[in-house]
């Protein structure tokens, strides 16, 4: 249920009234959810349940990556705009009319706020690492589903084994969180021990 349908429902005193598509606000339509990207899969019963689930998960990972890149594009754009704004303000500071102490102080505050925005944009970009981690977690699930599927095929003596490309899987991805540097101390200690042992 989208916002226009919720609004219509509220306006109708609880009666469900689905607005026609034409009534919707002209805002950019959100990307369809992964399942909607393959309507045919829902319309026609899939003969291979495991294959269907694997394909759905593959769609989820690719759609998430695509949408993450759109967010990154927007963040890049914000970053460029803030940089441009900073350049313009720097130019403005040279102007005779901007030499009054009060004006200079206000300009410095604007510059400082711009820098904070830029830092937050970079932080948001760094947080997008979650996409790679969740993708790898899904790939691990797909890997296990394929193993179960192939085992059942072997057991029954009929059916086709999965032949899709199998990316290299992280066997510890299930334990990986999304907190930056949560494993840094551990990794650094292992590196240090390895180097010490090599020297000795």
């Amino acid at each position, binding site marked *: 249920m989208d916002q226009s349908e919720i609004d219509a429902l509220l306006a109708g005193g609880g009666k469900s009234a689905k607005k026609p598509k034409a009534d919707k606000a002209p805002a950019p339509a959100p990307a369809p959810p992964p399942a909607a990207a393959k309507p045919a899969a829902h319309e026609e019963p899939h003969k291979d349940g495991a294959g269907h689930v694997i394909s759905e998960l593959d769609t989820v990972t690719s759609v998430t*990556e695509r949408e*993450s*890149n759109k967010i*990154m594009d927007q963040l890049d754009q914000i970053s460029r705009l803030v940089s441009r704004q900073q350049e313009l303000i720097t130019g403005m500071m040279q102007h005779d009319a901007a030499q009054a102490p009060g004006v200079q102080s206000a300009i410095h505050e604007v510059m400082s706020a711009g820098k904070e925005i830029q830092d937050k944009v*970079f932080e948001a*970009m*760094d947080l*997008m*690492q*979650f*996409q*790679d*981690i969740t*993708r*790898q977690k899904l*790939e691990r699930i797909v890997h296990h589903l394929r193993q179960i599927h192939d085992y059942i095929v072997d057991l029954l003596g009929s059916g086709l084994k999965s032949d899709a*490309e*199998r*990316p*290299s*899987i*992280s*066997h*510890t*991805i299930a*334990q*990986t*969180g*999304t*907190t*930056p*540097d*949560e*494993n*840094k101390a*551990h*990794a650094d200690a*292992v*590196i240090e021990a*390895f180097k010490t042992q090599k020297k000795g």
Partner: protein
Amino acid sequence: MKILIVDDSSTMRRIIINTLSRIGYTDVVEGENGKSGLEKLGQGGVEMIITDWNMPEMDGLEFVKTVRGQNAAIPILMVTTNAAKEDIVEALQAGVNNYVVKPFTPETLKEKIESLLG
């Protein structure tokens, strides 16, 4: 300095490129797996490699071993979700110079790159 980034996640490549750009490294080439990484490396000029481990076609470990067969000196930083001790040791034995576990902060990436470049 030209840096080669090898990662199958385009989002992760962008994050690494952004971090590098903030610390002054803007000359970057990209590969989406070990195979394409080797192709980019073959084009010349690369002075440092940042590679993921888990990738299709050719994974990061195989990539590192292949690179080390041709070039013993180029600094290689592995950036991966693999955090187990045996994985880190295996990567170091294969020829990786340093190791970062995802997710990382830009400060960590900066620290590791600077330590590699001495």
